[in-house]
């Protein structure tokens, strides 16, 4: 019955992927912007947390209090100072080129500042503690916490989008930017807040990644790819689809790795391609990828 354990571990891993996918999904939903530096920005958050922990000996989980607001600010300024300009006009080229350039800049800056060494965040006992359910099945506290935080972030975002004034502005600009502007919505500000929130979730994801495993300046693109796969598998434009996509991806990778260690990531890719081929709207999505 080891596969039960694999599925459970896969679901827990999927919690982390959902956390990574949230911000990507939000930015695409609000402004049709695909941020190719998404993964690299999560690694920036992990390195900032590392620098804080090196300077002040605290549990890395406390750094969330500093890094999350910081990354919100970074996102806000990034959108106002750069990405809004890339979004002018209907040409799809500039947003892709600008965020790809940003990704290369971030990776190489991190490489110069922190070197190519593997780093990790040490959160102490919680990393190894687990709940033993049976001889063959144990649930780690930290992966469980990650999944719970992932669900909480997605639920919180869902509440913001459906219940608040800000959420209404998100939906309005998403539906029709011109009309939203006529109704007195400052779309540049709305976009900046959306990117700020997206990067705040990315900061959480980056720090949880750093605690769970090691990271280097060059692992950002892999994070972007997993986040993207979770979004597409789940279905574009569906918050709960993003969670489902993350979980499916996590399970696929864990089961694939059981067949052969080299096949874990590949199995995830193949599930993604299968969804693209046979169900392009994703598991819970309503719209076709656009």
């Amino acid at each position, binding site marked *: 019955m080891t596969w039960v354990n694999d599925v459970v571990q896969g679901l827990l891993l999927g919690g982390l992927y959902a956390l990574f996918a949230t911000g990507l999904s939000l930015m695409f939903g609000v402004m049709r912007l695909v941020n190719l530096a998404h993964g690299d920005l999560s690694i920036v958050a992990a390195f900032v947390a590392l620098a804080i922990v090196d300077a002040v000996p605290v549990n890395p989980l406390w750094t969330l209090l500093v890094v999350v607001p910081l990354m919100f600010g970074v996102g806000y300024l990034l959108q106002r100072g*750069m990405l809004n*300009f890339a979004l002018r006009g209907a040409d*799809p080229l500039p947003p*892709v080129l600008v965020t790809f350039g940003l990704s290369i800049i971030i990776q190489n800056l991190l490489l110069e500042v922190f070197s190519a060494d593997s780093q990790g965040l040490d959160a102490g006992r919680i990393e190894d503690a687990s709940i033993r359910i049976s001889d063959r099945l144990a649930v780690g506290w930290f992966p469980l916490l990650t999944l719970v935080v992932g669900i909480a972030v997605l639920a919180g975002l869902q509440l913001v989008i459906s219940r608040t004034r800000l959420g209404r502005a998100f939906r309005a600009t998403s539906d029709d930017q011109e009309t939203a502007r006529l109704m007195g919505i400052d779309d540049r500000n709305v976009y900046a807040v959306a990117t700020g929130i997206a990067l705040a979730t990315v900061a959480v994801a980056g720090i949880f990644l750093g605690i769970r495993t090691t990271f280097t300046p060059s692992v950002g693109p892999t994070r972007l790819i997993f986040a993207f*796969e979770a979004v597409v598998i789940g279905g574009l434009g569906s918050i709960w689809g993003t969670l489902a996509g993350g979980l499916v991806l996590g399970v696929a990778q864990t089961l694939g790795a059981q067949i052969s260690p080299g096949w874990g990531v590949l199995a995830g*890719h193949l599930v993604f391609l299968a969804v693209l081929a046979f169900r392009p709207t994703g598991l819970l999505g309503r719209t076709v990828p656009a």
Partner: protein
Amino acid sequence: MSATREAAVAAPALRVQRATLASRVGLILGLLAVALLAAGPLWVLDSVLRTLISFFTLLALATMWNLLAGYAGLVSIGQQAYVGLGAYGLLFFADTLGLNLFLSVLIAGLVGALVAIPTAALAFRLRGGYFAIGTWVIAEVYRLVVSNVSQLGGGSGLTLRAASEYDRTARLFATYELALAVGVGAVVVAYVLLRRRLGLALTAIRDAEASAQSLGVHVFRTKFLVYLVAAFGCSLAGAVIYLNLLRVQPEAAFSVNWTAFMIFIVVIGGVGTIEGPIIGTIVFFVLQETLSGYGAWYLVLLGAVAVLVTLLARRGLWGLVADRTGWSLFPVQRRLQDLHPSEGR
């Protein structure tokens, strides 16, 4: 109104102009330059020939990426898939099957084009930025599959053995001529394609996709064709690159850096112009030679320049030149020339 009717009945008052003075001068100078370069082995140092091999292969890659992104709106971040497939295709046909080394380069290119068919069928379901990441994921799939095939050397790769059967100098010269042919060929193919129906169709799609479709332009088929041509070109270039390097490794052959270089070259030189990738490749090489000592800072600078050019000077260096001078070395547009300007049109 009357002028139009006269024009229809009497001698044509308008002529479609397809060449410019700059393009005629450019053609002659270009042919001279290609002839001189083709004679390169006679008058150029071997070390310079090696640099020129990577110059021409990068020019081919950049030109293909420009065709995709600049003309067909297909912003691929997965062209490394074809560089890798070209490299491994060469390895497979030359070493495993024992075919002629240089014939294997051509077959490797065709294999890339063949693989592009299912790839496009999947990737074309995504658009814009998601198309970009989608192509990247598919390139990763090819890398992981190749890494898991032990006959192809697995994760640590293989060395091209068939190359050792040839004399070192003869192989260098042949590789150089192949690289030159691939580089110049890429530019010529792009130019010819864009001057024909395909160019008109692409322009129409770029300006208004829905309208173009309603007027009978096959949007899917047009983009698909461009994707196949780019896959063939990149695979061919990949095979020539590894014919020069000899050592093939999945991490390097399928590295996203190949596409990053294509993007930097095209963006800096001028996206959506045929001259752009040529200028861009020259600038890229000059920067690489002067800044190679600065390590990662070099890539930071390259990234920053690409971002700034995208935001501030959309059509790159060649765009700036063309705006000032009105030059067009590779005119793909059709200009109407008024033969009787006195009629007050």
